[in-house]
Each structure stands twice: as C-alpha cells, then as structure tokens.
C-alpha cells in the first residue's frame, strides 16, 4: 500500500468509512447520473416492493440499441454477434457468451440485462409497477388521467396509443420484455424477490451468482392464482399477480420456482409471464428502463 498518496484538500475523516461502504454498494438510481433523453420517459406514480409510494421515470418503449447503448455494451465487454438477414447467428455461442445484436437488445438474458440497466442507473419494473404502468396508459387513453413525459410535458393521444400498441396490441411480430420480479415457490408460499442489483464485491463469481435482491416478500399461494388462463388487469393484486380467471385482456402464466416475470404480445394474445427461465434469450426480447426519481 502506498502511504504517499495524499489528499489535495484536507478532509475530516469522520464518516468516510460509511461513504466508502455506500460506494461499494450497487449504484443508487438518480436521473442526474444518466445521459438520458427525458422526453423518451413517462412519469409514473407507483410503489416500491414494500408498497411505499415512489415516482419513477419509465421508458416509453423498450430500450433501443442506438450508438450510445452500443458504446455502453462494448464497455461492459458484451460481444457483437453477427447475424444474417433472417436473424440466424453466424458466429458466437449465445448460450454462454454475453452477446448483443445490432438493432435490438435480444440476446441478453434476464441476468445480462442488469449491468446495462445499472450503467444507466435504472432498473426493471416490478410486476406491480408494470401493472400500474399499464393502468396509467389505459386511463390516459380514456382521458381519465393526464400522462406526462420526463420533462413534464403532456403526452398526446397519438403517442399514448402508440405506446400501448407496442406494448399490448394483438399483432405480430412477437414482442417481449423482462420484468424485475423473480419467484421462489416453496411449500404453500410464493416468495417474490425484487429490487435486483449486481453485487460487485466478488467479481470472480459468475454474473448469475452476483445478482442479489434488495426485497423479499412472502405471500400465500392461496391468495393468488396458481394456474394459467385469461384474466384482466383489474384482477392483478398489489404485487401484480392475478387473483382470478375472468376477462380476456391478458393471458396469465402463474409463478414457478426460480422463474422470472415478463410480458409478451403477438397476434394471438398479450401474456403476463411469471414462469420464464431467466436464462431465456430471443431476438425480440427487450427491457424498459425505469429510473427512481423520488
């Protein structure tokens, strides 16, 4: 250790260890830390996993792999994969490497998306937050609520429709995005793990083992629907899980052990998935950035 390193300015040492401990934790979310275009985000009043009120900035559409994102992916050592016109991978083993494709985020699985999100000091929506996001969009579409972008400007009707269409309209191509919630099913309980972050204190471990959850919530299996079927967004409970089969807005796939949540849509249906393998990859898979603002 070098003892010659000296501060340029005198500083009282009190509290520096606490600051160092905080710095070792995963990055806290702050919109100020990012170079995001606030017009591409919507303001959402929702709750954190402990159901405390918070406000998020939520991306209108899943993240696009533009020049900036490509730079970030490269800086994170993600490798570019070559694909042909049909989307077939020409090189690289996508089951074991961190890879990405030119125009869509596709080949990043649930684990691999997280370092990218953290780079932008953002997170994925939890199931409950996703439910609130859909509700807000629908209420804004019906004129019951105003929808504001990240700069505080009102979002017009055309754009609200477009955002909703990309999200839930029954049409091809198949679109999908991962959500933050991960499930553990144990006896008569379903345990929700949320607020995931990458623990960087032991970089020698594989990424999958370094992903930790800040929040853990146990709920009774009996209180939620543990079977698949069509339901309506209004039957999603405080945790964003369906409580009954009724309606035909969304197809619900119930929680399974070690699975994660996601949301898909194609010409057949929109489905809320609670049983997806977090290692699953597909070209059409994406993620939507959510940034905590208060």
């Amino acid at each position, binding site marked *: *250790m*070098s*003892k010659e*390193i*000296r*501060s*340029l*300015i*005198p*500083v*009282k*040492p009190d*509290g*520096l*260890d606490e*600051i*160092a*401990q905080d*710095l*070792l934790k995963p*990055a806290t979310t*702050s919109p*100020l*830390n990012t170079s995001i275009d606030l017009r591409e985000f919507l303001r959402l009043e929702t709750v954190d996993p402990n159901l405390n009120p918070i406000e998020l900035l939520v991306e209108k559409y899943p993240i696009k792999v533009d020049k900036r994102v490509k730079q970030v992916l490269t800086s994170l050592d993600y490798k570019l994969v070559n694909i042909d016109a049909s989307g077939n991978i020409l090189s690289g083993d996508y089951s074991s490497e961190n890879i990405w494709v030119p125009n869509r985020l596709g080949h990043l699985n649930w684990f691999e998306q997280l370092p990218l999100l953290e780079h932008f000091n953002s997170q994925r929506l939890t199931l409950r937050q996703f439910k609130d996001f859909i509700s807000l969009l629908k209420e804004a579409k019906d004129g019951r609520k105003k929808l504001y972008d990240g700069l505080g400007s009102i979002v017009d009707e055309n754009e609200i429709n477009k955002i909703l269409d990309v999200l839930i309209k029954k049409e091809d191509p198949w679109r999908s995005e991962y959500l933050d919630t991960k499930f553990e099913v144990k006896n008569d309980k379903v345990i929700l793990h949320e607020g995931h972050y990458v623990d*960087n*204190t*032991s*970089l*020698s471990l594989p990424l999958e083992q370094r992903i930790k959850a800040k929040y853990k919530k146990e709920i009774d299996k009996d209180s939620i629907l543990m079977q698949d079927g069509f339901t309506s967004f209004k039957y999603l409970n405080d945790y964003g899980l369906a409580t009954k089969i009724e309606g035909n807005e969304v197809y619900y796939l119930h929680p399974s052990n070690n699975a994660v949540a996601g949301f898909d849509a194609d010409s057949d249906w929109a489905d809320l998935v609670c049983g997806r393998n977090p290692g699953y990859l597909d070209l059409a898979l994406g993620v939507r950035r959510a940034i905590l603002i208060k």
Partner: protein
Amino acid sequence: MLVTGAPGIGKTTGLEYAGHFFTGTPLEEILAAEIQGNPQLTEEKLVASYDLGKLIKEGERIVIPNRFLGCPVKIIDEGNRIPADNLSIIMRLVDTGKAVYGGQVLEAVPGPLFLTANYADEGTFQLTPPFLDRFDVATMVTSPQPWDLRKIRERGDEKLNGELNKLLEIPENLKLDFNQIRKEIKKIDQKVEYEVPVVDAFVDFLYSSLRFSEAASKNLARATKGNAWRINQDNAVSGHFIDSPFNYSLNELSVRTVRAIQRYAKAYAWFNGKDKVELNDLKTILPYLLWHKVQPSSKALAEDQIFENDRISFVEDLVEKVETDYYEVLGSDALKYYSAGLNALRTGMIKDKNGEDRKLSEDEIRNLVKASISKLSDVDKPYALTFASHLSSEFNSRANGSKK
C-alpha cells in the same frame, strides 16, 4: 523583484538605498554595478567580456565577469528599454543566478536582482511573459502621498548639505545575517489538518483552478492553458463552464511561481514574527507574486475595466473567487467521495459497520474508486474533474506498481 511605476518617483533610488541597507553593500558598488536599460546593450555590457589584452597578445580567451555579476545587489534600471533579444541574455541569470559567456558558466554573487520598469512609452518594449515569470515578486510604486512628500522635503537635501555618507551608516544592531534569516525562514512550518498542509492545499487548489482550459483539449491531461496555444480563453467559443475562476485568466501558474509562493509565504510569516505560516499570510502576499504574471481574460476585464490598470485588484478578486470555490469544496460531498476513494487506494482498508478494520480486495478497491469517480461526474464543477483525475491517476499508478 520587478518594480514598476511612473518615472521620477524614486523607484531606482529606493532600490539602491534599500539594497545598501539590507545587504550592507556600499552604495558606490551598487551604483557602479547597475545596468541602465537601453536598446544598445550587449552581452559584454550585461554579463562579461574577454580580457582584451590577453586575447590580443596571447590569443587566450579569459572571461572577465562584469561588476553587475559580482555585486550582491543587482539593479537593471528601466529594464523595459531593453529589447527582448537582449533580455533573454539575462533570463537565465534572473532564474538561476548563473550566466554563460564564451561557453563559460559564470556564477553571480547571491543577492536580490531588481528590474525597474516605467510605464510604456515610445522607447519601451513589452516584457515577455517568460521573462516576467522569472520575477518572483513585483510591486507597483506609487508617487508619495502629500503628507509623505512633506516629510521628504523637511528631511533636507542631503545632496546639498553633504550628509549622505552619515545617513548611509548602518547601525550595528540593524545589520542582517542572511544565513541566519534563511535558516529561520526554512524552519517556518504550516498548519496541518488531517495530514494535509493547509497552505500547500490552497496553493495547489489555486494552481489547479487557474490551469484548466476547455479550449485546449478534450483530454483532461492536456486541458490546460499551457496547451491553449492557438485558442485561448478570449478567442475560444464558450465552453461548458462559464463562471469558474479559470475563465478569468489567460494563462496558468508556472511551477516556478508555485514554489516562489510557498517561499514568500514563509518569509512573510517570519517577518511578522510567526513560527507558522497561515492562509492569511499567503493571501496577503499573493497579489504581489502574481499580478505581473497572471493576465486577465476579456471576461475579467468586462467585469471590471479597472483590472486593465490595477492588476493587483485583479489578482485579489481572482483569489477571492478561488477561495469561494475552495470553501465550497471543503463542505462538499465531492470531497467526501474523493477522499473515500483515495483512502481506499492509500490504505487498502475499510472499517465495517462494527468499526472493525477489513482489508479490501483488489476488486473492491477498483469498484470503490470507480464509484467515487462516478459520483464526482455528477458534480458540475472543474474541481470535481481534478479530483476524478487524481483518483484515476493514483489508481493507475497503484495498478502499474502492482504489475511490476
């Protein structure tokens, strides 16, 4: 020392007499060694010449230093009447006390070197920034106040009444022992807060605050005014930072200047009978060490046109701006993030929540420094860039050191 002022107000006379009283050098010797600035000055008149007799008779080149080099009090009167080419001859002399003639290095007798300069007229030349930088201290001499003028008149005219020799006598108890004084000044210490000497910290902050230049480079290592050789603060398009101290000066401080600041601050503290130099000592002397070197930008002149004439006020104002930033830094989160990162690099340890020391792994040190730099990137101030650069530099040194 550079001494400027209007003609006929006693600049040169004052220096001759001060030189005599401070060093004990006879006034005649000082006067005989004095160089009067003019465009025809040659190296022979300034530094040395060959022994012409030996050269003609025996062909031997014996260098004879002139009286200027041999006198403990060196005065160049009206130095700005010497063209830049000739001034460069004595540049090294001002800087190091050494001169070269005929390939021979000549050592000047140690002692102060004064250069007087009247304000510009048709017979003067511009003193170049590199030349000015070699003068550690400069003062503007003003004409005497009317009440002082009366004292001068009532003192009598020693040139008429022949009492000059008597007045030049130096009482024994006022004779100065320079070696002893140097030793005492050397011993002057400074207050250290949390292992950092406070005066040095302020000087370093001042240096850092003035050197930054957005126009010079996008690379932080080269973003200094010394590299802004084509586009400077005045002709560059407006950058990101528009009201930081660096916006107010065209040039940065040289290392020579920074060293002189520390030396003179100690001397000033000694002069006031202190055993420790404090920030106030530094702030008192700074205007006189910087006004002839730091050039105001057009932004500074737009703020107050008077700075064009009164450079001492300009430097006082500039130092005040830097001081405002300095105290902002002392209470800032930026300093805490920087210090937390630096501590990790310095000690490789952290106290856990129970107060127990724990060794940080290399990965943790890297992550902590990275997080510190990330936090600093949120602080929209040039000093945050300095902190981040310092962390990055120390981290790289550490990493390179561990590879060796």
